[in-house]
């Protein structure tokens, strides 16, 4: 379809502003741009239609099952959106006097209190805007901690090979060297290997647990002890917290610092790639280093701290993606104590149920009881019938199901990582299981049709190589 700029016609447009009601100031020519920006000139009728077309070419959670592993695509309750849209939240300037923003501060303070309780942490900062941003912030806390103790030799962060790519990338940004530790055949950290790499240069370990193959590493207490014994700190990547919240707390298992993905675990929508929110929580030993400003209780209300001498500083303008925190708080208030546990239990139940419905046909990378997600390996299907993880994924598209995460984690060949989430009903899982099973049979009987999939989508498989070789990254105006 056409780009919006291709629908532009000189002289069209909307009438948004009145004429200027004060004398007009002009800039000297030396300071003005040589030509006006070529922005679209479109009437509202056609703006509405353009984005309707784009909407119909977008698959949201409202369109159907979305078992995208590691992304926790749960349903995003509508009440969250209504609350975040309240003018008393959306129309507040970040630099208003403190006595006029007590509601905003209460949102942060309540969210901090509840999320600390859920994770077993002592304090939290909401500045990080996304998970990776939280990782970076958390690692800086670790760095500041060691530095504050004059422990300057700790230059390495240990990361399992099953980790999300953000973990090593964040550690690099924080100035660390990465030590990869391999996983065992059961998908868990190889304890012996871990022992062999840990040492006086270990700043810390980054771990996702349940890990990225959907298993809870049962050696977790041993792992955190190994790190602590070596003088390192333990970082918990909260990407998979949805499986264990209300069941067990990272803080109780030896983790010192954690980030959460409010846009995964706490039901704030993902927005096609953000805005998210990646708050960082920590134990008291790291609290002094949290990004500034934090807040404290003052009388009946709250006030921003004025001094934070040991803080790592700021990682963002102002205080974070506030409205995302509003949505998360709304969600936590809805679920409450029991609801949080119920969500985790059913996330795990749904994953196991679906795995169980498929495991007679599909090979599971790990046969073990999974947590909130499980990994299918299509290595055999690939070998025997030439049908890859990609092919099955594209076949799902033709059946109205968003594919699982493909080719991740890297340690599993032809991986499809399936995360149903707790907000899906048994019926949806049953229907999805039928589709998966049908595709398995198609793979055996008519693999060619899967190579050709999808055929019902607005576009079919793309030339990605061409896109990268000959990048066209914006519309090129005719001169």
């Amino acid at each position: 379809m056409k780009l919006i700029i291709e629908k532009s016609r000189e002289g069209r447009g909307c009438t948004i502003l009145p004429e200027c009601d004060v004398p007009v100031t002009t800039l000297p020519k030396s300071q003005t741009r040589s030509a006006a920006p070529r922005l679209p000139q479109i009437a509202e009728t056609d703006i509405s239609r353009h984005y309707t077309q784009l909407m119909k070419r977008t698959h949201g959670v409202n369109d159907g099952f979305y078992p995208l592993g590691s992304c926790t695509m749960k349903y995003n309750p509508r009440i969250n959106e209504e609350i975040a849209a309240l003018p008393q939240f959306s129309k507040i300037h970040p630099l208003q006097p403190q006595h006029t923003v007590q509601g905003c501060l209460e949102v942060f303070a309540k969210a901090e209190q509840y999320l600390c309780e859920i994770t077993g942490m002592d304090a939290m900062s909401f500045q990080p805007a996304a998970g990776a941003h939280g990782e970076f912030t958390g690692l800086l806390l670790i760095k500041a901690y060691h530095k504050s103790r004059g422990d300057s030799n700790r230059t390495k962060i240990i990361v399992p090979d099953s980790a999300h790519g953000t973990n090593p990338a964040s550690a690099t940004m924080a100035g660390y060297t990465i030590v990869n530790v391999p996983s065992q055949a059961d998908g868990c950290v190889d304890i012996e290997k871990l022992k062999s790499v840990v040492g006086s240069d270990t700043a810390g370990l980054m771990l996702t647990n349940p890990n990225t193959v959907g298993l809870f590493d049962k050696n977790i207490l041993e792992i955190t002890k190994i790190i602590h014994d070596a003088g390192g700190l333990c970082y918990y990547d909260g990407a998979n917290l949805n499986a264990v919240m209300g069941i067990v707390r990272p803080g109780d298992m030896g983790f010192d610092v954690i980030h959460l993905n409010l846009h995964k675990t706490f039901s704030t929508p993902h927005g096609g790639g953000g805005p998210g929110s990646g708050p960082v929580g920590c134990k008291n030993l790291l609290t002094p280093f949290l990004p500034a400003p934090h807040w404290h209780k003052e009388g009946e209300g709250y006030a921003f701290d004025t001094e934070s001498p040991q803080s790592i500083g700021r990682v963002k303008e102002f205080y974070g993606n506030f409205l995302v925190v509003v949505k998360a708080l709304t969600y936590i208030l809805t679920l409450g104590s029991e609801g949080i546990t119920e969500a985790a239990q059913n996330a795990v139940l749904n994953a196991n149920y679906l795995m169980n419905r498929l495991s007679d046909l599909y090979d599971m990378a790990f046969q073990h009881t999974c947590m909130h997600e499980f990994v299918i390996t299509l290595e055999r299907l690939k070998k025997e019938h030439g049908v890859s993880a990609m092919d099955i994924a594209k076949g799902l598209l033709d059946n109205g199901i968003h594919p699982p995460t493909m080719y991740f984690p890297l340690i599993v060949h032809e991986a499809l990582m399936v995360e149903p989430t707790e907000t899906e009903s048994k019926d949806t899982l049953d229907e999805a299981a039928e589709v998966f099973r049908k595709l398995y049979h198609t793979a055996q009987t008519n693999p060619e049709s899967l190579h050709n999939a999808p055929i019902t989508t607005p576009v079919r498989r793309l030339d990605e190589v061409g896109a990268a070789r000959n990048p066209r990254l914006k519309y090129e105006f005719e001169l």
Partner: protein
Amino acid sequence: MGSYVPSTLSERQQMLEGMGLKKMEELFADVPQNMLLTEPLDLPQGKSEFEVRRTMEQIANKNVVFQSIFRGAGAYHHYIPAIVKSVISKEEFLTAYTPYQAEISQGILQSIFEYQTMICELTGMDVSNASVYDGATAAAEAVAMCKERKRVKALISATTHPDVIQTVQTYCDGADTELIIVPAKNGVTDADALATMLDDTVSCFYVQQPNYLGVLEDVESLGSLVHTAGAKYIMGCNPMTLALLKTPAECGADIAVGDGQPLGMSLSFGGPYLGYMAAKSAVARKLPGRIVGETVDIDGKRAFVLTLQAREQHIRREKASSNICTNQALCAMTASVYLTAMGARGLTQVAQQCMSKAHYLADRLAEIGFTPKFSNEFFHEFVTDSPIATKQVMCALEAKGILGGYPLGDELSGCILWCATEQNTKEEIDTLIAVLKEVCGK
């Protein structure tokens, strides 16, 4: 208790039994049993939608919504056309994930491509990414892009928004880059000082235009100095002002960044906003974050896809140009819809009116003793001193539902950073002046 688990208790039991299990607890056998929570979490009990709404409304009501706002300092109160919220509240856009599955994500992908086009058009740059978190992190990422083996220092003007300086500082701390602040003189970057600070260990210089104090920097001259020293030139620009001002490209910038909040995002106590980043071709491959490219599908149909992923963390891991994953995609779409609804004519109107109203405001303020602090040309923000204590000024205004300018600290203590936008009608400005007159006893 509220819940979004659709399966009923009996269905859950049925599902468990199908797997030969009896209780939910059995699913968590791998968790160290001594670590399992034995008490419920110390959280309030779950609430119905009705109660949640009441509770959150009670919290919201503790905030004060100002009817008239003369404060900017990094967050600007612009008019948002109705079509903008209408578009971005569509559930598909709101709830989709990052568009990995291109075939069913063409809507998001095309919107990002359109956003990239508009950002390039505003800045004059060759390539834009799909967004980063905000203006401050965009600045920090831009500084990181410029680092070279021997160029290990970065310079930033003291006239930059303090949150941006602090954020860049934090990122530089992480990367062990030395960040040096170039001092200001008369409200603008001290070019002489800059000249002396530039050497072949400097990777880049960052300047904000219009700067934190609202003043227009001599950005072309600064750029020449920087390039002469072989360093990269980064400009942080309020994108709204680019409807009128020389583009970063015209000023010689290698990288243009900024906060996109003025392009249709509400104030929202500081976020979510939008960080934009655009660059000249020469440094394009160093841009962090998502980039969408145009391609075709196997039938030859036009299509869009995330591209140049070899730069990114999920492929390159510790060797990635940045760790960024989730960005601010919906905010980028917001900016696109805003720019489309305004068009070039409308955006120019915004810029023109912001500037005109700020000058009208400055003139009226000067008449009643709020003297301008700097003499250089400004855009829509400016600093004055105050004939009476700033606290007194703000209280008097607040009583009338007006959020006055931002009281500055440090060496500008006692001064106020004012801002006017197209939302401030002449009537509003005149009311502000009347209130001030009264409180100043004039």
